[in-house]
């Protein structure tokens, strides 16, 4: 009866191993979660505070890290003014709430998660497209252009697929722009990589031969 004495066919051994591995993996996940919570707190180096909407934001290659990182620059007016910490926080709150209420995530992706029917919004604030859109919607600044577009996207078709009118009010649109600007300042470990790098060639006919 030597056969029945193998540990490999012992239910008890596998049950104990399963309990150990599951329990320990859960403990590790909880410890990692505590550390991650510390790192992604709003107002930290990875997720900046809402008042980052008062600053110029860029996305530059970092030789040290091997990918692009958000670069928070000098102060710049946002909708023509500087926002206090409380005002900025309230605006971001409304923007995040609106992004959920309008179901953005079931067409777009945010930080790469969502549906794949419309462009990723992670760095949408930095998209060169808004420069083209400014004269189209009759706006003097980028934030105004985005806000105007969001209120009447059906009027500005740029491709066969159009964003529908989601009854976004002027206040909600402003808040959404703040939400997008804040998101573009989050350190996403270099996602998306080489953001909009090919656009110039694309506009020139998609070729280097000119």
């Amino acid at each position, binding site marked *: 009866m030597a056969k029945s004495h193998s540990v490999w066919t012992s239910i008890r051994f596998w049950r104990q191993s399963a309990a150990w591995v599951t329990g320990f993996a859960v403990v590790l996940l909880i410890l990692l979660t505590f550390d991650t919570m510390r790192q992604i707190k709003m107002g930290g180096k990875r997720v900046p505070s809402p008042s980052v909407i008062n600053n110029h934001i860029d996305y530059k290659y970092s030789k040290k890290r091997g990918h692009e990182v958000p670069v928070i620059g000098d102060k710049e007016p946002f909708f023509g003014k500087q926002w206090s910490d409380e005002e900025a926080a309230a605006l971001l709150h409304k923007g995040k709430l609106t992004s*959920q209420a309008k179901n953005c995530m079931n067409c777009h992706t*945010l930080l790469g998660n969502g549906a794949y029917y419309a462009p990723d919004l992670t760095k949408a604030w930095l998209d060169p497209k808004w420069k083209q859109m400014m004269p189209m919607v009759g706006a003097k600044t980028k934030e105004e252009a985005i806000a105007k577009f969001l209120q009447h996207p059906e009027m500005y078709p740029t491709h066969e697929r159009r964003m529908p009118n989601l009854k976004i009010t002027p206040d909600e649109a402003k808040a959404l722009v703040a939400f997008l600007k804040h998101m573009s300042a989050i350190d996403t470990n270099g996602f998306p990589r080489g953001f909009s790098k090919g656009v110039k060639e694309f506009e020139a006919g998609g070729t280097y031969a000119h």
Partner: protein
Amino acid sequence: MLTSIKNNNLQFESQKLGLMYFRVALILFGAQLLMGLIAAIQFMYPEFLYGLFDFSVARMVHINALVVWMLYAMIGAVYYMLPDETGIEAVGIGLGKLAFWVLTAAVTVVVLVYIFIQIGPGKESTIWFINEGREYIEAPRWADIGIVVVVLIFYYNVFFTFMKGKKTGVMTVMVANLLALAGLYLAGMFFTDNISMDQYWWWWVIHLWVEATWEVFVGTLAAYALIKIIDAKREIVEMWLWIEVLMLFGSGILGLGHHYFWIGTPEYWWEIGALFSALEPVPLVAMFVHVLYDWGKEQGAHGDRPAIKNGPAMAWIVTNAFGNFLGAGIWGFFHTLPQVNIYTHGTQFTAAHGHLAFFGAYATILIGMMYLGVQGAYGVERMKATFKSKMAIFLITFGVLGMTVALTIAGYEQVLVERAELGGGWDAFFTAQALPWMKQAMTWRTIMGVVTFIGFVYLVLDLLTIGKESQKNS
């Protein structure tokens, strides 16, 4: 399945309740496919239902119906196996039935609101009453709370029936796993302004469901079904089950890291997510080997009598074993390493994986459980596959595989043109979407969606008639 609502051969109320859950699951499955077809058509003709029933709505109902029909079928399967495993009736069956009707009423209201109200103003009231706008768990907060109450009743039934009756290894795993599964839902029930924090906890629900607790759930169902369908030896099945739990949770829990590469979370998740999730396919291979091994072993062990007592259920479970490995394992592994995920993240590649994985890992085995339910309801000793059963499994499997291949091709194109070549962004996105390769892929996806839907019609017809036909033939 319908003809047996009042009069059936089931001895236990718990099993009858299981069948009630199966019926609603099947209806929601149909709704899921219809919504998927609308969304697929919108990819080809963007003006289709534009401004009336936009892509975001079709897609939201598509994925919500998916999650809810699977949860229904899972609850149904547990109520069905409960008396078989414990040897007794569920302890609070009256409460269980009440919970079923409450849940079904709530789901109906939620779906009607999704379809007719769709979106709300940017205020707290919208996420409380219309939709929460978070992929897969869009259900508004009031429904979240309702779901928690209903699940508590369900868990009360499972736990106390287990404590009162016989305690098998299969049920031990089921009871422990269900607690984790239900508890995880709470991680998705709060609002935060911090999108990184939002997605961190959102993945706790989504990932720890579909890549950990749901997978263990499937392992438990397969163990039960193999004992039931081919008289597999309980000791062997239970030993495999513990090995599966070990490997699924060992890889799946920290495999959560592969969702934390790019959402603002720290650098160390690259390594954790990469290697742990790279091991996720291993238990899925083991499950496949296990099912085939047991089948081969029991086949011919009973003389001339065929080993399989329920042909269509067994066919779906074998499809599950392979589909789980292919859809969750292989298609998941394709894009799980950060080095490739930086380009594939947020593209049709994910959609390809999603379609094959949800089908292969979950839809298949849950359909198998429905066939087991029909067999029980009609009291058939041996249920053989009919022409309709064969058409159903062939067309649905072929259709989903076809959609997956089409979406994978769309994904390749999007990854390389939009992401690698043009670097993402507005124009890059639409350039890639407008290429003939993308359009062809989307056309094939729609065609294969229609094939899947025809298969679904055969499935419904078969579930409605196979019981009676088998009764006549035996």
